């Protein structure tokens, strides 16, 4: 058997081989760089993450599995409290935190205070465009939808919420059944209240909030307490809750119903950033690479959080962030108006901000 190779074929083959070799070479360079980063990070041997307990736990487990030689410690809790801790430590020149994985509003605030260092991610093209902010030293790390939820057994045949405007004249049957959280301490709540403010305006939005007071809505200490009260049925209707929490409840078999409000849910994101004074900068960089990579994002997805990668779907039973009807939220603007929004919420609901 003989083959006849013409000059054009030979040149094409040579070109393809060169390209392949070049690509392979580039891969080798990238791998070397990754190996160097891993080595440097393992030499540091430690990583400190501050942030939201739900996702940080998942991230730590995922990171530990990939890099067992790096000891990870965490401080988790309410977003603003954790931000205060981070800023106090840095201002006293006692930096402890390397990576901040927390609600986007606190990350923007930390960035505005000059506390964050530059951040990079090797596979930017694999991220959803919404994961990359126009400005700022951070990436969005995972998302969640703020939507309606209620305890089916406890609500029985009583009416259930369909839209935010249902609260303008809430049914009497909801008296004493609804709970909500404080936007001054909860980032998810701030996102929702700011979205109502921006979408409905002060009057109509204010009427929704005043409705909460009419039915003796309870102001609870945190989103977690809200989830507990929904789970136990003590307050069987949440003014809103987040998709992560409801997914967790459904996973435990709690009879909870979930609904996207007819006017739209509110999307809220956690973001990831590196401290400008990170004591373990290489471990921090390695964590960012891992956290936005496919494995860690898959781990988040399995815990029913929204991934920020293009190559991963939305959590089971939930629409994708692109498909879900949403109230638009300009978070940067909302943070500029934060004091006004909080005062408006307080005046409308009668709850104290602090």
């Amino acid at each position: 058997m003989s083959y006849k190779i013409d000059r054009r074929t030979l040149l094409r083959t040579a070109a393809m081989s060169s390209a392949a070799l070049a690509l392979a070479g580039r891969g080798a360079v990238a791998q070397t760089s990754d190996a160097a980063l891993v080595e440097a990070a393992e030499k540091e041997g430690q990583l400190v993450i501050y942030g939201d307990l739900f996702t940080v736990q998942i991230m730590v487990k995922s990171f530990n599995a990939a890099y067992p030689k790096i000891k990870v410690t965490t401080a988790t809790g309410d977003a603003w409290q954790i931000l205060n801790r981070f800023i106090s430590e840095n201002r006293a020149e006692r930096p402890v935190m390397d990576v901040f994985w927390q609600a986007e509003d606190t990350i923007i605030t930390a960035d505005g205070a000059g506390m964050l260092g530059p951040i990079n991610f090797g596979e930017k093209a694999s991220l959803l465009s919404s994961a990359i902010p126009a400005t700022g030293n951070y990436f969005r790390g995972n998302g969640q939808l703020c939507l309606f939820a209620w305890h089916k057994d406890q609500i029985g045949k009583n009416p259930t919420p369909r839209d935010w405007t249902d609260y303008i004249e809430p049914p009497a049957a909801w008296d004493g059944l609804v709970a909500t959280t404080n936007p001054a301490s909860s980032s998810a709540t701030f996102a929702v209240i700011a979205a109502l403010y921006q979408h409905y305006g002060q009057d109509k939005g204010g009427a929704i909030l005043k409705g909460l007071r009419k039915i003796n809505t309870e102001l609870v200490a945190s989103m977690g307490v809200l989830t507990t009260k929904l789970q136990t049925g003590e307050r069987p209707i949440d003014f809103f809750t987040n998709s992560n929490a409801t997914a967790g409840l459904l996973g435990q078999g709690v009879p909870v119903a979930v609904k996207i409000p007819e006017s739209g849910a509110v999307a809220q994101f956690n973001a990831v950033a590196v401290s400008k004074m990170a004591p373990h900068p290489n471990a921090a960089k390695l964590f960012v690479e891992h956290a936005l990579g496919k494995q860690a994002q898959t781990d988040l997805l399995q815990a029913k959080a929204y991934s920020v990668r293009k190559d991963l779907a939305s959590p089971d039973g939930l629409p994708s962030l692109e498909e879900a009807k949403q109230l638009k939220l300009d978070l940067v603007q909302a943070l500029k108006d934060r004091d006004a929004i909080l005062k408006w919420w307080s005046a409308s609901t009668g709850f104290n901000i602090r």
Partner: protein
Amino acid sequence: MLAVLVVLPLLALILRGFVAVEGGRSSASLGSFQKVLGDASYWVAMGNTLVVSIGSMLLAAVIGTLLAWCLVRTDVPGRQFLEKAAAMPIFIPPFIGAFAWILIGAPRIGLLNLSFRWLDLGQPFNVYSYLGIIWVMGIYIAPYVMMIVAGALRNMDPTLEEAGQVAGLSRLRTMLVITLPVVAPAILSGAVLAFVVGIGLFGTPVLLGMAREIYLVTSRIYLELQQYPPDAGIVAVLAIYLMLLSVCANAIQRRMLRGRSYVTLSGKGFKSRLVMLGSLRIAVAAVIWLYLVLTVLAPVALITAAAFSTYAWSGIFTWKHMQFLVETVDVRTTLANSLIITVVAATATTVLGILIAWVTTRSRMLGKQLIEDVVLLPMSVPSLAFALGVFFFWLWVPGGLYGTIWIIIVALIGRYASYSVRSISSSLIQVHPELEESARICGLSWAGTLRRITLPLVLPSIVASWVMVYSIFVSELSIVLPLYTAETRTLSILSFDTWSIGQFSQVAALSLLQLVMGVGVMAAVGLINRRKAMVVP
């Protein structure tokens, strides 16, 4: 050392209230006081703190005094066991006690309300109310009063009561007219302690009060720490307010006791004669058992049930949350931190307690009264306020302890050394110096005398002191909250965080672990003591 442990943190706290920080520059200012005094919500919090603390103090004083009288002066069946068991609520962390009482008395889902609803009797209980908070705080603080009053009752000359009965007084009137006035200083002392413990409690007001917007000063401090930007000046002023309340309570106590003599313990030996309850014996025992059910048995049973449930009251049980305890890195890390911090701090506190007790009871050192006064000072400072002082002090000390477990250990020692000193001093006073003098005459050195004579004689109180501070430290939340960092989180912080994110069953599992750590060590020490007592002829 006492300056670093006690004085400087308290000074730092007070000074922080008079400092304004703007653009990184600090200046003297009364701005924080003006903000607090000019804002009605802080006044409401101060008023709520007074109402709840006085209410729980009164409840604790009544329960504690009755328990002490029944267990020390009557023939109630099983009184020795019951006296030990009645002290148990102290070792249930306040946060866990409040969590358990939500399961018992919350509207709609509390077991008591469910039972009443099942009987068509409505929902009479609401733990999220002033009365609910006062009830939960009062029943858990009552053992402090009981222990102090029980000690006084044991030292009381029973001939006083006998004289009353000879004069024709009934048992009840004897108790009211003779016994109560005689032990009044102890009741007052217990009540003041209950008040001071009450104003400093953090977990109970946050869990029970915030649901109905009943904010106390401690919950306001917690909220302030959550705000951005935080106002450390306001936090300091609120903490100073708590300190002032404590100082006032102690001053009132001193004023009430001034110029009166309550001496009943003389050189004459006596043996207490028990009051025979007759047909009431069983009823009284049943009431004491009810107290134990409400404070210990029911909460522990409910927490256990919750820890093994898939969710809330699902009726489906699982080992999943126990696996969470075993498999989660956070649990392992915080457990290790808690054990290290607790054991080191309890041991250091006890050693410091021995040294200071020896100096104040045995030495002729100049200024020993000042040492005692300084070490007892934090006793009247709520834990959260003291911890904030430690935080303000160490955060700005170059090369200091901030970020290490040592800052938590130092704070625990500073805050609770007084407990050890009190406990060990009271035993040292009972050991006559003649014993030590004889040993010195026989040629033993000072250290040898201490090691071979003094310490063995007061060993039971040293062990008791260690167990007491260990039990407090193992569940301490208020001290740790402002001081922990990522590497120094404790189990109590993890429990609180887990509650914050709504992991109901995991909170219950963590609570169980904390209970085992506290009660387990107590039981182990008790067992060792019993075996030693059996071996010694």
